[in-house]
C-alpha cells in the first residue's frame, strides 16, 4: 500500500516589490521548490498582521514564512524595519508559549534573489516537514 507522504501546508507572505518578484524570478529560472508553498502577495511585509499568521495556523497551516525586502531596501523605506521588530517580538512570544519556533520564519529576499527564494522555501518546507503537523496552534474545527 502506498503511504501518503506528509505534506505540510505552508503560507508565504511576500512583499510585492522584492520577495514576490524574487519568487517570480525563481519561477522564471525554473528553480523548483515544493508545491506546498503558497504565496500571498502583500504590498509590504509590514502589511502582515500577527493576526494573519495566527489565522494561518488556526486554519491548518503548518508553517508561515514572511518574506520582505532586505532591511534598508524597503520600497516604502522603513516597512520591513517595523516588520522585523513586530515579528521578533511575536516569534519570541510564540516560543514563550511553547510553540515550535521553527514554524515561523522571516526571510529577506530581494527581487534579484530567485535562487535564495527557492532555497529558502526548500529549507523551510524541509524544516516544517521534520516537525510534523502543527498541533500546538491548531483549531480542530477547521480540519473537519
Amino acid at each position, binding site marked *: 500500500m502506498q503511504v501518503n507522504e506528509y505534506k505540510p501546508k505552508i503560507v508565504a507572505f511576500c512583499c510585492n516589490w522584492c520577495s514576490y518578484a524574487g519568487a517570480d524570478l525563481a519561477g522564471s529560472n525554473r528553480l523548483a521548490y515544493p508545491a506546498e508553498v503558497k504565496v500571498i502577495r502583500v504590498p509590504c511585509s509590514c502589511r502582515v498582521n500577527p493576526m494573519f499568521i495566527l489565522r494561518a495556523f488556526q*486554519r*491548518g497551516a503548518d508553517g508561515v514564512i514572511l518574506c520582505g525586502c532586505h532591511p534598508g531596501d524597503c520600497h516604502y523605506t522603513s516597512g520591513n524595519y517595523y516588520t522585523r521588530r513586530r515579528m521578533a517580538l511575536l516569534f519570541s512570544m510564540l516560543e514563550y508559549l511553547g510553540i515550535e519556533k521553527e514554524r515561523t520564519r522571516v526571510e529577506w529576499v530581494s527581487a534579484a534573489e530567485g535562487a535564495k527564494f527557492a532555497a529558502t522555501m526548500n529549507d523551510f518546507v524541509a524544516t516544517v516537514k521534520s516537525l510534523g503537523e502543527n498541533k500546538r496552534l491548531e483549531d480542530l*474545527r*477547521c*480540519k*473537519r
Partner: protein
Amino acid sequence: MRKCSLSNSTALFNKIAENATLYIPVDLEKGRVAYKKYADGMKMSDALKTDRSAKDFFFPQTENLMEFKTEGKSIEIIDNRSEAEDFVVFGVRACDVKSLEVLDKVFLAEPVDSYYKNRREHGVIVSMACTRPTETCFCGTFGIDASAPKGDIECYKTDDAFYFNAVTEKGEALLAKLDGVTESSDEKAVNEQKEQIKKVLDKLPLKDLKADEFGADKTDKFFNSPEWKNLSEACLGCGTCTFVCPTCQCYDIKDFKTNKGVQRFRCWDSCMYSDFTKMSAGQPRLTQMERFRQRFMHKLVYFPTNNDGMFSCVGCGRCVAKCPISMNIVKVMKTLGGKNND
C-alpha cells in the same frame, strides 16, 4: 440514609466512576478550586465553592449546535451532536443546585432546549451542605437553605463520613449502585450538622439582606430609579459577573467557517457587553447604565415576573468575590432595596 466513611471515599468515587463520568471539586494551585473529571485516587476539595459553577456541565461556555455543508446553491444540515454520556457532579452546594432550577425554567420551558435537556437528563447532582459558608454568601436572601441542598442525591460530609439520601429517581438509581461501598445509617450526624450550619448562617454578614422589596411586577418601582447611574458608573462592562454566575444564561449563536463547511455554535454572551443588543437597526440599551440595569432588573424583577416569583439570583457570592471593581448585586439591592436593607 446511606453512609460511607471518609477513609473509604476512594472506593466510593471509584464505584461512582464505574457507572458514570464523575466530576469532583479539586484543589488546584494558588487556592483555585475546579471540578475535574475523577481519576483514581483523586482527592476531593473541601473548599466551599468551585471557581466556576456547576452551570458549565449543562450549559457549557461553547457548544456546537449543528454543521452545514454548502455546495453551489445547496445546503445540507448535519446534526452532529454526540450522544450525551451519563455523568455525576459531586459536591454541588445549595446555591448551585438552586441555580439549575433557575436554568430549567428557561431551557426546559417550551420550546424545550434539547441540548440542555439532554445533559440535564444524563447528569446526576450530588449536592452537599455548606458547613463553612463564607462572608460573601447570601443564599438565605432567596430562601435557599444551605444546610439542606436537594440535588438528585443529598450528601453531607462530616468529619468522618459521607451521608447520602436519594432525592430523585435518578439519585435513587445511582445510590442503589453504591450499596457495596455504603452502609445504612441514621440521620443523627446529619441533623447535628444541619443545626450547626444554621447557627453559622445566622452569623453571616449578609444574613440580613432582604429581597422582599424586589420580585414580580416591580418593574415600575425600580426601572427609573436615579440610583442606577451611580451604581453603574464604574462598571467596566466586562462579563465576569455573568460568566461566574450560576444562573446567567444569555447566549449568542454564531457561525464558524471551518475548512469544509460551517459550524453553528452557541456561546455564552453577556448582557453587560456593549454589543449584546446591537443590531443593524440600532441599539436599544445605549449606555452601560442600561445594560447594568438590565442585568439586575432581570435577576430581581423580570425573572420573578415570568416565573412565579422565583429570583434568578441564588446568592452564591461569586460575583461579589470576582467583580474587578467590586460592584455587585448586594450593593445594588442595598442601594435600591429601601428600608429593608438599610
